[in-house]
């Protein structure tokens, strides 16, 4: 390759023969017998190109944040912009769940539970929050058949859940923040030092001091905001026009349903062996015909599915190119 000159430069492609596919295409485009004979004489065997020499293909990321957000890694492999969006969403879900875990561990510590058990409980709790939020985020499909009522219900449920978890999670954090004041109050009263006593002391301190009440409320709102963030992100995406990822997924799901229906028909049309009478043989022939047609239909569907997916991905790349 030459450095100063523009473009990518290499040794010329040699006139070293014709690939079998090129010869086939010449025949398909109506080349004369003389041309075809020459092409056949010059046809060479093509050795497969070593994979290292080929440009890297997009690889499905099996374990990444996008998968955590419930995205299909195979579809995302061909749609880099959508992958970034889902990775962000996965990150937000993870942060939200991590915060819950920390809060649960803190609560365990406040209650005097051993660190190992606190961490185990915290992780379980964090996992529960993660999967619940993931489930709710996935309840926002951007499909034509999903009604506004269903979407709205999912949003409301998620917001309610966020505030509930924020209330639960903020309490141990508050206990930890105001631990000196709580200890002082408990010592002054000579009461029990259990979790309940600490909670009572926190309530009393909040009632007496508006600043503590404000700080607790602010913490609760902050946590709720973090937990509601995945919903906000998804709701914003939902307001925008469907992305190629949504379209591809929609196509895949539709074809999956049709395939399932066809599989069912195929199972129903199977006749138990043996069939001996003439009438039964005729039925069997008809069924064989139906099965054959089903196979053809399935093949056509698979082909159409691939074409539609390719068109959508092509559309996305054109859109990106225009945006670029």
């Amino acid at each position, binding site marked *: 390759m*030459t450095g*100063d*000159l*523009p*473009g*990518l*430069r*290499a*040794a*010329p*492609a*040699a*006139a*070293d*023969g*014709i*690939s079998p*596919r*090129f010869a086939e*295409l*010449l025949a*398909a*485009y*109506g*080349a*004369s017998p003389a*041309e075809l004979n*020459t*092409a056949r004489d*010059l046809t060479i065997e*093509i050795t497969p*190109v070593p994979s290292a*020499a*080929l*440009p890297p293909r997009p690889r499905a990321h099996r374990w990444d944040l996008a998968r955590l957000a419930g995205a299909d890694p195979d579809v995302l492999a061909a749609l880099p912009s959508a992958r970034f969006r889902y990775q962000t969403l996965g990150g937000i879900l993870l942060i939200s769940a991590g915060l819950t875990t920390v809060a649960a561990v803190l609560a365990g510590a406040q209650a005097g539970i051993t660190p190992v058990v606190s961490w185990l409980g915290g992780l379980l709790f964090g996992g529960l929050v993660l999967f619940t939020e993931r489930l709710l985020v996935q309840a926002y499909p951007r499909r034509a058949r999903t009604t506004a009522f269903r979407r709205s219900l999912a949003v409301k449920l998620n917001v309610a859940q966020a505030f509930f978890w924020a209330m639960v999670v903020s309490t141990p954090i508050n206990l930890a923040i105001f631990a000196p004041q709580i200890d002082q109050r408990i010592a002054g009263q000579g009461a029990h030092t259990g979790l309940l006593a600490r909670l009572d002391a926190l309530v009393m301190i909040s009632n007496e001091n508006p600043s503590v009440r404000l700080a607790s409320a602010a913490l609760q709102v902050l946590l709720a905001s973090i937990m509601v963030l995945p919903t906000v992100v998804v709701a914003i995406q939902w307001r925008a026009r469907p992305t190629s990822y949504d379209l591809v997924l929609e196509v895949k799901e539709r074809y999956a349903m049709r395939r399932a229906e066809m599989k069912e028909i195929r199972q129903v049309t199977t006749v138990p062996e043996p069939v001996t009478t003439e009438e039964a043989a005729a039925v069997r022939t008809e069924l064989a015909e139906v099965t054959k047609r089903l196979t053809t239909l399935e093949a056509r569907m698979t082909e159409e599915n691939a074409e539609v997916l*390719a068109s959508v991905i*092509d559309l996305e790349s054109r859109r990106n190119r225009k945006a670029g």
Partner: protein
Amino acid sequence: MTTTRLARSTIAALAGAIVTLAQLNLPSKPFWDGLSALLYISVVTVALFVVYEAVLSCDQALQVRRIREYETTMAHALSAAVRLVVEEFGVAWDQVAVYHYQSRWTWRGKRLGRVTAVRAGAPVTEAPLRLRLGQGVPGSAFMTQELIAEEWRDFAQQAVIAGRAAWDARPSDQRYGLNWGELNNSERPEGQVSNPQFDNAGKPVGCTVVSGPLKPADLTSQQMRRILSDLATTMKQTGPAPRGWWTYCDR
């Protein structure tokens, strides 16, 4: 070529007019008495013109079968290349074009003449019919005898944004031998790759260009090299354009 033909026709018309006027003694007989040399020249010119046109027509009539065969062979090869590019790189079939240029002598010197071009079965009009050696990606590939791949749209857009002064300041080989007007008028496919072709003696005789929505990885891939090799082999076997081809194209 149009200028040449126009000049030839003008000379022939002038010579014909002179001979006719002399035969009719117009404006007068004494007027032509001292101009016998001009009359001889005019008669010879008219005769040459008639013979030239007759020979050209006869030659074309004799060559027409070969010309048509050559044209269809080119169309088959270029169409097959378009199809292969679409299959290999999954690009839109109506955005891929394949051109074939051959070197030829014109009255202004040696040039690369566009033999034929194919895109989606429709004739391609944007690519220049003739290129100076070193002009454009095909001309540069021919001159340097290298395969050259270029993200042409980006290259041209950046150059246009940078402005005329920056373009003119570049050395000729860094602007593919194009002047500012040629750059602005050039077709802007996303990518193009040009492969020079050689005769049996190893002398460059032409080049093949593939253009379309192709990324650098596509342009320099082994698959693209294979397609260019297929084309190079076919063109080498087909040989140079037959006699009368350029006249046929220029008409």
